[in-house]
C-alpha cells in the first residue's frame, strides 16, 4: 500500500514540519518495508538504531529539508560501529572506527540511517549480481528475472521499493546512474571533488564519485546542498562555495543548447527508447531550448570501455592491496606472511574481483605500462578533451542512460558490439571528465522504466538541475516507485 516514503523529499518535509507525521513514523514505515524487502537489497537493517535515533527527533527544523528523513547507505560507506563489508567476504566482521564524511554530514542534518545496502562486491561490476549475499533483483519485476543494475544495486532496489527518502551510492563508471535508469529513479553524481570521498571505500579514486538516488530532481538539488563542500579529510575535495542548487530548479531552459551523440543514438536497437527519446527532444525545443546532433567520434566512443577497464582495474588492484587480513578482516594463520596474506585474499575475493586485479596488475607491469596503462591514460585525455570541446559549444549532453529497460539475468550482450561498447558504457564519460551527470526516468516500457541522462559542465550543477527539472516536467515522471506502479499511479 502506498506510504509516505513513495513521496518526494519536499513533500515529506512539509508533512514533518506541520507535524502531520514524525520521523519515528517514517522510520517505522522504512523498517517495516525493509524487512519485507524481496530484492536482496540489504547487508544490514539497522532497526533498533534507526528507531532510537528517530524517536529522539521531536522538534522539526523548518530550514532543514533533510530533518528526520530516513535514508540508506551503500555498504561501501564507512559507518562507525556498524560492520561495513562492501559486500565482500574479505571485509567480513570489519567494524569501522569512523564515519564517512557524507555519513557525518547527514547525521548533523538529523537524517536517520535505516540500512546498509548490498552492492556488487567492492563496487566492481554493473549488474548487482556479485555481492557476497547473492544477486539483487529489480523491484519492478516481481518474477525476479530482471536485474536492477549495479554496483549500487541495493540502494537502487530499496529506493524503488519505497524504503527510504533517498539513498547513497557510489559511481565509478555509472554505478548510480545506470541502476537509476533501471529502477525509475533520479540518480545523480556531481563533479569530481564536489562531495568528499573520505570514508568511501575506494575502487578507482580518479573515477570514484559519491552519488545518490532520489525520487525527484528537486530532492537531488536539496541533497547536494547538504553533501557538497570542502572536507579537510579529502584533499581532492573542492573549495568552491556550495550553491543553493534548489534555486536553479525553475530557471527553465530557454536558449539552452542541448546536444546528443549521433553514434550512440544510431546504435540503439530498442525502438521504443528511440521513439520516446526523439519525442522528448521536440518537447525540449518547445521549452525554448535548441537540440543538435553531434558526432563524437566512433573510435573514441569505442575506446571508453577498454580505457575504463584498464584504469579502473589498475587503480583497484592498488587500492585493495590493504585487504590482506593483517590489520582487519578475516585473518588466516600461515607459516609466512605471504601464506597468511595469500589465504586471506584467496578466500576473501570472488573470482571476478581476482580477475580484475590480475588485469590491473598486468596493465601496470613495467613491460606493459606503456602499451596498456599509459595508453589508456592518453585515451582518457583525448576523450575528455573532445567532451570538453563539445561542452564549450553546448550546455548539456543529453543521451539515453542505458540502451533499454533493465535486462534479464544472463541476457548476454555481445561485448564487442557498438551497442554494448558505447550505449551501455558511455556514462563513464562523466567519470573520465569528472562532470556532473544526472539520470532520470523518461518513460515506462512494458511497465519497466527507461532512463535518460544529462551531463553538464564541471561545477555547474545548478544549471544541470534546471535542465533536469525541465525534462522531468516534460515526462511527468517524478516520485516513481514500484508500489506506485503496482497500484496504478504511474
Amino acid at each position: 500500500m502506498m506510504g509516505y516514503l513513495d513521496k518526494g523529499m519536499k513533500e515529506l518535509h512539509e508533512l514533518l514540519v506541520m507535524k502531520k507525521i514524525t520521523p519515528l513514523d517514517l522510520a517505522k514505515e522504512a523498517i517495516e518495508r525493509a524487512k519485507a524487502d524481496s530484492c536482496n537489497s540489504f547487508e544490514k537493517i539497522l532497526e533498533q538504531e534507526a528507531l532510537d535515533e528517530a524517536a529522539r527527533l521531536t522538534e522539526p527544523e523548518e530550514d532543514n529539508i533533510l530533518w528526520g528523513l530516513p535514508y540508506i547507505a551503500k555498504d561501501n560507506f564507512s559507518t562507525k560501529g556498524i560492520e561495513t563489508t562492501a559486500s565482500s567476504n574479505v571485509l567480513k566482521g570489519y567494524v569501522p572506527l569512523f564515519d564517512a564524511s557524507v555519513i557525518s554530514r547527514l547525521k548533523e542534518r538529523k537524517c536517520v540511517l535505516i540500512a546498509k545496502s548490498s552492492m556488487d562486491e567492492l563496487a566492481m561490476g554493473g549488474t548487482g549480481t556479485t555481492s557476497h549475499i547473492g544477486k539483487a533483483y529489480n523491484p519492478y519485476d516481481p518474477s525476479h528475472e530482471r536485474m536492477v543494475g549495479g554496483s549500487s544495486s541495493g540502494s537502487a532496489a530499496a529506493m524503488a521499493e519505497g524504503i527510504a527518502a533517498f539513498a547513497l551510492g557510489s559511481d565509478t563508471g555509472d554505478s548510480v546512474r545506470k541502476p537509476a535508469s533501471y529502477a525509475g529513479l533520479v540518480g545523480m553524481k556531481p563533479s569530481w571533488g564536489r562531495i568528499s570521498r573520505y570514508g568511501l571505500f575506494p575502487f578507482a579514486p580518479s573515477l570514484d564519485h559519491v552519488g545518490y538516488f532520489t525520487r525527484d530532481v528537486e530532492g537531488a538539488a536539496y541533497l547536494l546542498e547538504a553533501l557538497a563542500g570542502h572536507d579537510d579529510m579529502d584533499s581532492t575535495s573542492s573549495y568552491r562555495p556550495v550553491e543553493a542548487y534548489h534555486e536553479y530548479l525553475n530557471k527553465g531552459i530557454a536558449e539552452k543548447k542541448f546536444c546528443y551523440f549521433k553514434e550512440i543514438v544510431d546504435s540503439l536497437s530498442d525502438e521504443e527508447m528511440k521513439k520516446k527519446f526523439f519525442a522528448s527532444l521536440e518537447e525540449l525545443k518547445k521549452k525554448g531550448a535548441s537540440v543538435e546532433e553531434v558526432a563524437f567520434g566512433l573510435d573514441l566512443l569505442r575506446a571508453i570501455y577498454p580505457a575504463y577497464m584498464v584504469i579502473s582495474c589498475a587503480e583497484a588492484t592498488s587500492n585493495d592491496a590493504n585487504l590482506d587480513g593483517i590489520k582487519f578482516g578475516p585473518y588466516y594463520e600461515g607459516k609466512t606472511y605471504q601464506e597468511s596474506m595469500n589465504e586471506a585474499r584467496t578466500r576473501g575475493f570472488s573470482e571476478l574481483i581476482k580477475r580484475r586485479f590480475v588485469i590491473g596488475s598486468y596493465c601496470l607491469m613495467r613491460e606493459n605500462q606503456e602499451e596498456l596503462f599509459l595508453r589508456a591514460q592518453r585515451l582518457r585525455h583525448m576523450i575528455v578533451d573532445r567532451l570538453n570541446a563539445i561542452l564549450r559549444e553546448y550546455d548539456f549532453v543529453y543521451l539515453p542512460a542505458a540502451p533499454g529497460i533493465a535486462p534479464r539475468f544472463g541476457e548476454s550482450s555481445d561485448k564487442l558490439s557498438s551497442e554494448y561498447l558505447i550505449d551501455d558504457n558511455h556514462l563513464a564519460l562523466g567519470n573520465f571528465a569528472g562532470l556532473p551527470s544526472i539520470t532520470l526516468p523518461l518513460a515506462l516500457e512494458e511497465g519497466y522504466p527507461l532512463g535518460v541522462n544529462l551531463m553538464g559542465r564541471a561545477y555547474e550543477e545548478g544549471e544541470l538541475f534546471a535542465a533536469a527539472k525541465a525534462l522531468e516536467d516534460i515526462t511527468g515522471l517524478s516520485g516513481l516507485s514500484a508500489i506506485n506502479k503496482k497500484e496504478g499511479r504511474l
Partner: protein
Amino acid sequence: MNFEAVIGLEIHVEMKTRSKMFSSSPNSFSRAVNTEVTPFDLAFPGTMPRLNKEAVRMAIRVANALHMTIDHELHFDRKNYFYPDLPKGFQITQQRRPIGSDGYLEIRKGNEKKRIGIERIHMEEDTCKQTHFVDYTLLDYNRAGVPLVEIVSRPEMHDGYEAMKYVEAIRNIVVYSGTSDGKMEEGSLRVDVNISLRPYGQKEFGTKVEIKNLNSIKNIQDAIDFEIERQSKALLSGEKIRQETRRYDESKGATVLMRVKTDAVDYKYFPEPNLVPIRLSDAFVQDAIDTCPELYDSKFERYLQMGLTEKDAEIILSDPAMASYFEAAAPSGADMKEVANFLIVEVNSYLNKTGKGIKEIKMPATELGKLTLILKKEKLTHKQGADILFKCLEDGIGVEEAKKALHIEAMVDDEGAILAFVTEALDKNPQSIADYKAGKDRAISFLVGQVMKLSKGKAKPSAVMAKLKEEIAKR
C-alpha cells in the same frame, strides 16, 4: 690497489614534523607502541592522504642546502608491493618528479674540497616497525607514515672516508636545518651503500653490492673499506662479484651476506590519484628557504671568526644543543674562545660525570659568558674560573654568588707585593735556602707554600716561583 671503487649512497632521513607525512597522527618517536596511529596509518578503507605542509617546507630546506633544483609542483606516486610492514600495500613516494634534483655538496679531504653530486631528493612515508621473534613478528604502527626525505647521491665517491664525510655533511644539514635528529643509531638517519669495483680506466661499472644496517658514521667507513678489500681480493683471485645485499657486522668488522638479489622488483608505479598535483608558490618556497635555521657551514665559519680553532668549532658543532648553548653566551660580550674552552673541558666533564645533557644544566649560558668577563677583569686564573663554574653547575647559583662562596679573589702579581712576601719567607727560612742551594729541589716548593700562606693564597704562583729563584740567587 688495482681497482677503483665506485660508491653511491641512498640516505633516508626521518623528519621531525609534529605530525605524520599524510595523517594528523603525532610523530614523536617516544610514545608506547601503537599509540600514534590514525585510521589512515592502518590503511582502513576510505581513509585518504593529507599532505603535511611542514614536511614539504623541510624538504625544500634540505634541497636548497644541497644546491638542488626545486620542483614547484608536487607530484606523488604509488609504489606497490606486499609486505607486512606496509599497511596500504603501497607506499606514497615521489617517483617521477622528486621535489629536488641535480644538486651537490662539498666535503673536505685534507686541504682539498671535493664536490659530490646528488641526483635527487624526494619525500615519502615510512613503513611500520617490525620486531622479529623466533616464531612471530610484532608490528608497531607508530612509525608507519613518519615523513621521510630520501637523498640519493651520484656514484661519485671512491673510498670509505669520502662516504663517511658525505654522510657527516648530510647529517649536519638535516640536523641544523631542524629537519631531523639525524641519529643513525636510532634509525632517524639510515644509510644504504651501493658499491662496485672496476679496473682503473674502465668506463663500465662493475657488479653492484648493497650494504645495509649501518648504524654509525664510523661503521660506514669501516664497512666500505672492508668491502673494497673483499671485492678486490675476490676479483684478483678470478671470482665473480654477485649482485647481493650485505650487512655490516660490527663485532666481526666485516660485511656479511643477507641475500642474493634476483631480478629487481617491479613496483608498478603510478600517480597517486588521491593527491592531485600541488602548485607551490614562489613565495612559499622562498619563505621555507628564508626561515631555514643557520646551517653548519655558516656556523663553522662564524665560530672561526670568533677566534675558535677548527677543532674546537667542530667539537661544539658536533652537538647542536652545545652549539646553541655556546651561541647563547655571545650577547653578554663574553670571550667566546674562553667560553668554548670551558664548554669543551669543564662543562663536558661535568656532563659526563653526572650523565646529564646540556639542556638539563641549570646555569644559563649568559652566566658562563659573564664568568669569562670576570676572569679577565679581575685577572683570575682559568683554574679559579673552573672552580666557580663547577660551583655554579652543582649548586645552580650565579657566578657572583659562587665566587663569593668560594672566597675567590683576584691574584696578586704586583711585583712589589710579591717581593715583600718572598723576602719575608726567605728571611724566616734560611735552612731552606741552604737546602735548595745544596740541590734539594723540594725546598723551593716549601718556600712557594710559605709565600702563598703569607699572601693568603692570592699571590700568582708562577710569579712567586720566578721571584723566589731570583732572590735566592742574590743571597
